[in-house]
Every structure is written in C-alpha cells, then in structure tokens.
C-alpha cells in the first residue's frame, strides 16, 4: 500500500518532470540548432521564420499524440471492428448490424434509451429552469441552490446506493425502511418492489439521473438569467404582463440558446448512461440500455468485440448530429471574434 502511494507520487513527479523536460528541452534544442548564424559573407542570417513555423508543433505534439492514440485511432478502429467477428480477426460484413437489429435485448435497449432521451433531458432542463427562476426571487435562493447543487458532486454509483435505499422494499408484514414504501404504507397501500415493477422501473432509474443533472441545468440557467436585461422585463411589466407571461414571452426567448446547450449536454450524458443501470439492475427487469449492453458484450463469453463495437457505433451515430452542430456553433463564434 505504501509502495502504491509512493508509486503515485513518483508518477506525478515523473509526469510533470517529463512534460517540463520535453517542453523546455525541445524549445532549447530548437533555438540552439536553428539559431541565427552568419553566412560566408559575414551577414547575419535570421532563421526566425523557420524556428517559429516549427515551434507551434512542439507545443501541440504531446496533446495531438495522446488525442490520436486515445480518441481518434479508437474511433476508426471501433468502426473497423464492427465489421469483424468476436475476436476481431475475421471479416463478417454487416452481420453484427443485422444481428443487432434482430436481437430482442438490443431492441429493448434502443427502446429504453429512447425513453431516457425523451424524459431525462426534458425533465432536468425544465426543473433546472424552474429552480433557477424561483431561486432568483427569494432571499434564501442562494442557500436553496447550494443544497440542490450537491448531487452534482456525487458519483452515479453513490447516487444509486442513495436511491436504492429510497426504493427499498420489505415484505408487507415488515417495517418499511425505504422512505417511498413507508409513505405508500402510511397512506394505506401495499409496499411495492419498485425496481422490478414492469415499465415503470425504467422511470425510477431515470429519476436518479434527473436528480443529478437538474443541478447542472440550474447552475447554467442561473448564469443565463442574470444576463437577461432588466429593462426588457420592466417594459413587459409596465405593459401589464403577468409573471408567467413575462417568463414565456420575454425571458425564455432570450435564453433559448442556453436551453439548447443544456439540453444537448444532458442528451449526450443520457446516451452514455451506464453506471446507474449497472448498479441498480444490471439490465434485469427490462431496464437494459445500450452502454450497459455494450459493456456486457465486451466481456460476455470471453468477450465479443465485434458486437460490442457495433453497439458503440450505434451510440456514436446518435452523437454525430450534436457533434456537427457543436463544431458549426464554434466556427460561427470564431467568425464573430
């Protein structure tokens, strides 16, 4: 254990030391080997131009190398593997894709992912906006936001434990220690095994992610609401608009671009949702989602890399429109700079 901690410290020192050595060393070498020199006639020849055309590449090389190995190469390789068999050796054409769209488990995962995609981003965005708006108007708004913010720091697995405890089920004769069943029983109902309740159990898992993502939406909207000019709101108020009207007709249109950013960010998180499903049900009781199914196939029966890659590609395809939109948005912003 001690050696492990020492190992970590050495890694930090070596990591930073090596990076510093690389950046300082290559810069020194560049200045040294491509320094200005005198030609045969004794005139100084500036090689600054050549130096400065090489230097940027020295600055970005380590980042490009790591991005290449850890993100760009895998994207290409995963696409390739999706056309190969379980070992990644034999070419099978579209067989994995044909398998996927005939496999009940995969289709179930698609259905569930679609439900997650509709419900979680809309609920988180809506609730986040509601909380940000309400908190703006009350004196204890900052405290409220701080408290609601907390789940953002909690891991998906930690949140799963928290909510599994909320959903805890004991037989009808036992004392309920899960708060949800305790409420149901105190209202005269019978305790319910929430996590295996057909169809609705998906919703109970989504609640966990909504609980984590709403604070994110709230923070972003809080900042955006502060950017809405007061005089537009005042003008509407003088014209006799009600608060709800002001919100939907004056405030909301002005923060629409933020709503879209928050929505898409949560959408991407939802597409990759894995930890919560793994920890709560591991896909049992019809709660399977794509990322969990993919993880399952990576190791099931020694691992089927072809099918795993195919499922990853399906997730990627769903992300591509957002990716393109992101790049476009970035390029537009650059144009305005």
């Amino acid at each position, binding site marked *: 254990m001690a050696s*492990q901690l020492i190992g970590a410290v050495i*890694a*930090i020192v070596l*990591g*930073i030391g090596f990076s510093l050595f690389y*950046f*300082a060393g290559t*810069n020194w070498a560049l200045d040294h080997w491509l320094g200005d020199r005198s030609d045969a006639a004794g005139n100084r020849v500036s090689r600054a131009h050549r130096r*400065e055309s090489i*230097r*940027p*590449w020295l*600055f970005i090389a380590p*980042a490009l190398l*790591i*991005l290449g190995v*850890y*993100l*760009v190469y*895998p994207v290409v390789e*995963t696409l390739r593997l999706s056309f190969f068999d379980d070992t990644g050796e034999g070419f099978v054409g579209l067989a994995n894709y044909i398998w996927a769209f005939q496999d009940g488990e995969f289709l179930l995962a698609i259905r569930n992912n679609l439900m997650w995609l509709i419900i979680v981003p809309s609920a988180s965005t809506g609730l986040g906006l509601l909380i940000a708006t*309400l908190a703006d108007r*009350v004196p204890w*708004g900052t405290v*409220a936001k701080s*408290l*609601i*913010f*907390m789940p953002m*720091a*909690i891991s*998906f*697995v*930690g949140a799963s*434990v928290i909510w*599994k*405890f909320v959903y805890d089920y004991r037989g009808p004769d036992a004392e*309920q220690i*899960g*708060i949800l069943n305790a409420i149901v029983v105190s209202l005269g109902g019978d305790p319910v095994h929430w996590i295996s309740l057909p169809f609705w159990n998906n919703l109970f898992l989504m609640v966990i992610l909504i609980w984590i993502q709403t604070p*994110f939406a709230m923070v*972003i909207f809080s*900042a955006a609401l502060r950017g809405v000019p007061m005089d537009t709101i005042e003008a509407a108020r003088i014209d006799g608009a009600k*608060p709800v009207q002001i919100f939907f007709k004056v405030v909301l249109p002005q923060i629409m671009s933020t709503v879209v950013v*928050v929505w898409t*960010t949560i959408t*991407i998180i939802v597409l*990759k949702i894995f930890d919560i499903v*793994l920890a709560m049900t591991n896909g049992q009781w019809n709660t399977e989602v794509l990322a969990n199914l993919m*993880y399952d196939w*990576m190791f099931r029966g020694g691992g089927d890399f072809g099918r*795993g*890659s195919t499922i*990853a590609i399906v*997730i990627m395809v769903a*992300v591509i429109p*957002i*990716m393109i939109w*992101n*790049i476009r948005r970035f390029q537009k912003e650059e144009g305005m700079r």
Partner: protein
Amino acid sequence: MKIAGRYVTGGQVAGQFLLLFLVVIWTLPTVGLLISSLRDKDQLIASGWWSALSSTEITNQGRTGTADDQVETAGGYEIAGNLLPEDSPAEIGFWSDNINDITAYEAGQSAPVDDTGAMTVNADGSYSWVSPEPFTLERGERVFYQAFVPPIFTLDNYREVLASEGIGRAFINTATVAIPATIIPILIAAFCAYAFTWMSFPGRNWLFAIVVGLLVVPLQMSLIPLLRLYNDVGATFGVEAKSYLGIWLAHTGFGLPLAIYLLRNYIGSLPRDLIESAKVDGATHFHIFTRLVMPLSVPALASFAIFQFLWVWNDLLVALVFLSKREDQIVLTSQLRELLGSRGDNWEILTSGAFISMIVPLLVFFALQRYFVRGLTAGSVKG
C-alpha cells in the same frame, strides 16, 4: 399579504413553497443515507431513518441460569441474573415464558414460571426467580421479552466498512488513480491551448475543430480498441495489461479535449496587448507562456482540475475496463458496486461505504464551488 414588512403576492408565496419542496426532495435522500450510516445496524433494519430519534421496539429472548446458579436464601432458593446482553441499553417493557404471548407480564411484575416458584423481570433486564424448593433444572429457562432500545448512534459501521469490507483500501486506490490523472493533463493541455490561441500555423482552425468534435465522442468508442491495445502491449513487453499507468494515460486522453477547450477559451480572453508587448520586448513564446500566461491562467487551470478530479474520482466505467478488481487496484465506485451485489441487504455497510466514497468530492465541491461553477458554465458542451 405582508411578510417581514414586505408585500408579497400569493404567487410568490406559492413559489417559495414550491422551491422549499424541491430543496427537500433534492436533499432528503442524501440526509437519509447519512443518518442511516450513523445508526446502530440492528436499529437500521428495524425502523426507517426518519424515526432514528425515537426508541426502537425489539422482541428477543434470554435464558435464565440453571440449578447450579441457585443460592440458598432465608425463604428458599433463588436464581438471579440479567436477560439482556451485556451493555445493552434496551429497556424491557413486557416479558413472558410463553413465546405465543410475549406481552403477558409487565416489567417489574411477578409471575409463576414453570410451576416452580415466581419470577420477577425488571426493566433493566435483571430477573429474580425464587422458589421454596431447590431448583433442579439443568438448562436455563427461556424468557421472551419485548424491549425498547433508545436511539444509538455509532461509528461502528464506518469502522467495519473501512477495515473489513475493502472500502479503506479502495479509498487509497481511488486517490492513486485520481491525483495523477488530474495533474498530468494540465501542462500538456495548457501548452496546446496556448499554441491554438497565440501562435499561427497551418491547419490551426481545423485541428481545433477536431478537438471540439472530440469533446462529445462517447467513451464507449474508445474502450474496445484500447483494451486490445493494452492487452497487446502487455503481452509484447511482458507487463500487466491492467495498471495504474494505463488508467492515468486513459483518463488523460479522455480529459484532454475539455482541458484544451476550457484553457483556450480562457487564454484567448487575456488581453492581446499584453502578449503583443511582451513579444515586442523580445520574449519568446516559451517565455510568454511560462512567465505570463500560465500564472494568469490559474483560475482556469483550477476549474479544469476540479472538474477532472471529480470526474475521475466518480468514474466507474474506465476503472472497470482498465483496472482489475484485485484488492490492490479496485476503486471505490467499483467496490461499492460489488457490495451492492454481495451485501445488498446490509444497509449499514452500503450507507457508510457510499458516504465514504462521497466525502472527498463533497469537500472539494463545497470548498471550491466557485471554480467548479465557472468550469461548468464554460465547458457545458463536454460529452
């Protein structure tokens, strides 16, 4: 309506109640976990955490002494002792020698038992069984009781989970993963972000567009190729495929796009004149970066560091794929997930284990919330 000297409309009051309700929903589950983790484990399963402050009712049984324990008294013979386990804070309310009628007698009441003499059981568990004839019983008589246990709060659950459920070791492992994986990307990303902002080179815009694209690439795309790559590297060089070095580099790779993006936005917002005048004074890019830009970028570096630290600390998927589940490599999230499977009903272990896994992120989060929010606002496009 007038509240605290200010006129408040009905709508505003409704708004306050709604907000209060939402705050309760967002905090209650965590509060329940924290309270439960501090409760005695027998009480934890006997009553809900919301009744943690009231006494718990338990039914149990104890055994009296045997004939060997009897002492001769003036009036006959007596067996005395205590039915409750040692140091038990419980108070007996009712007792009986008949399992079908546990509440037959009140504490302090005297009643005939086993046709031989009379027994008195007191609230503190002490009993006295007297008989004019000598006792002959070879096994102690079973006495059933219903007792009330006052609330007990204890750190025992934490002690147990840290020592014997692997959470203590997993905590160290998680720190081993998270700290280097947070620090290593910073310098690499900062140099890259500087070049993207203040140096000109062919393909700069499009390389950066690729970085923006990589922000949202799902982690799932990287898992299988990297797993294969690591296995190959491990086999070729005769080293372990699952290692801390491997996961540090993986987290570095996955964190880099956000780091570059955040830092570029920040470095790009530094005043152009500052950089230009340094250049005029003859400073090289390397010096401008190390002496001027790095120190000025500390807030952005902090934002990213917090973000990356929380992300790595809370990660499960990357750890599952790139580390083994051996004792010397398993991280907190992974260990917690194992406990959910193997000790699913032992809430004293799950609640305290979960809370230990949350302590560091919560501390970082509350101490550095300002930086965290800034990073969040700036980097809200990350996938």
